[in-house]
């Protein structure tokens, strides 16, 4: 299972960076989305996925069942997803406004504020 997730992560990073390097503003946004999802998968898969039992202490026990996965990375990812959601929502509005006001979706033509 880990191997599949690792391959998927690599695939997402590849697609994400490819899209980031495109000149189109929409692809840029999708690229950001891919990369942030891939980062979440990295955190999920790094400590290992565990054997599939839930890390809940059963009644009468003092420890969770053996082979339980560490729940903390999942909590981290949950936080990261929520933050990513807010960032993407803002990015969508910003890029839409930029497209409307600047009249272009070509990133190469956004050179007016550069040196």
């Amino acid at each position, binding site marked *: 299972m880990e191997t599949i997730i690792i391959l998927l992560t690599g695939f997402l990073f590849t697609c994400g960076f490819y899209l980031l390097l495109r000149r189109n503003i929409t692809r840029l946004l999708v690229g950001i989305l891919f990369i942030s999802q891939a980062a979440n998968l990295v955190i999920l898969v790094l400590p290992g996925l565990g054997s599939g039992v839930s890390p809940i202490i059963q009644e009468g026990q003092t420890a969770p069942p053996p082979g339980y996965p560490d729940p903390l990375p999942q909590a981290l990812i949950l*936080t990261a997803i929520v933050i990513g959601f807010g960032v993407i929502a803002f990015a969508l509005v910003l890029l839409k406004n930029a497209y409307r006001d600047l009249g272009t979706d070509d990133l190469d033509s956004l050179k007016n504020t550069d040196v």
Partner: protein
Amino acid sequence: MFDLMNPFPLYLCLLIPLGAAIVQIFLLGQSKAQRVVAVGSTALLTAFSFALVAAVKAHGPVILDVGGWAAPVGIRLRADMLSALMVAITGVIGFCGAIHGLAEVPISDERRGYHPLYQFLLFGVCGSFLTNDLFNLYVWFEVMLLSSFVLLAQGGSKSQLEGTVKYMVLNIVASTVFLIGAGIIYASLGTLNFADIALRISQGQGSVTGIRLAGVFLMLAFAVKAGLFPLYAWLPSSYHTPRYTVSAVFAGLLTKVGVYALIRTFGSTFSAHQSFTLPILWWVALLTMVIGVLGAASQFHVRRILSFHIISQIGYMALGLALGTAGAISATIFYVIHHIVVKSNLFLAASVIDRIGGGEDLRRTGGLYRAAPWLAVLFLIPALSLGGIPPLSGFWAKLALLEAIFGVHAWFAAGIALAVGILTLFSMTKIWAEAFWKERPENAGERRPIHAAHVIPMVILTGITLLISFYPTWLFELADIASRQLLIP
């Protein structure tokens, strides 16, 4: 461990901006009340942060275990001297920005939520300085970034939208890299608490490859946030676009949060791996200094010149950190504090140059010395301080740094640091000669009135610069305490 001898209400440094932000949301549309809250809350934050510095000086680090769970399980807020100093300077800059905003920020922006966003920005900055947890630092960075995105775009001019797109994309990518770095740290060490990470690394836990890989990710992320070479491109493309108040607060605080994160991680938490991290930082710092100052030399736009100087000065700070000795880190901390005050002041001066001189483009402005001699003084003091002219604060900062560099016999770096100092002075002279001494050209824009609120923050910041200039010992003392606390966590 909750020390009862030390009941400093650390949470207030976060609750004041957060509370102010919430109140501001309900006051949306009532410009006057919002302004009162903005100035009042930042003044209160400044007062509490000064008290925090005093408390840390008297009793050592202040600790707050949020939610009552002891570290490393719970998330801990911890104010050592470095954090306390940074929060104090955030309060000062926040206060000055709030006053400047009274005159500079139009009502249309206030209606669109300028005030709550400003408070959320301060909330994020203070949180970044106070947290003692790597993942929590990521969350605070995001709080700060999201508010800064909106503040940067607010006003909606074409250049602002364009600047924000660049700023946003690079910062989101950097945040993602940061997140991966934090994930690797947790996977290899099983903790995210700074002190616990340092402890487990020194005990030899975790694989060296994993820790160094995480170090690479974190350094990449913080280098983007701090504006180190070659990852600074977002900074000079965006900092000259928003309102002057926003520019000044960003210039003072945001890149320095990146520098703070670099000091916290590579100066303290990862100090066991310094033989790996510091040589990288060393070369990056030297290149940052040179490229930044050369970039500034070719500009004719006041805020663009100043933006490039931020980069070059960040190079000095990174160089001090790369030396890794206690003296160098203490010099770096002194440098950071001096730089925040001076740089924000210069950006505030840019707003007055624009109003009185008729524009920000040096080719289309002039005659300011005749029109406003007081402004000349308020500009010259921070400008010369940035260039490192004795006896101003920049001289002491550079002197301490050079002393540390000489201590390790790095003559090449010392030569570069001195040369960059001269080039910095060249840029400041350019602004001085073009905007102040030159006769007002025919094509200059219209002169616009200025308000007392433009001048008061400049006077406050110039006063602080003079205080550091003539009595540098107290700040050196505090910086020494900070660096000692960093090296012995």
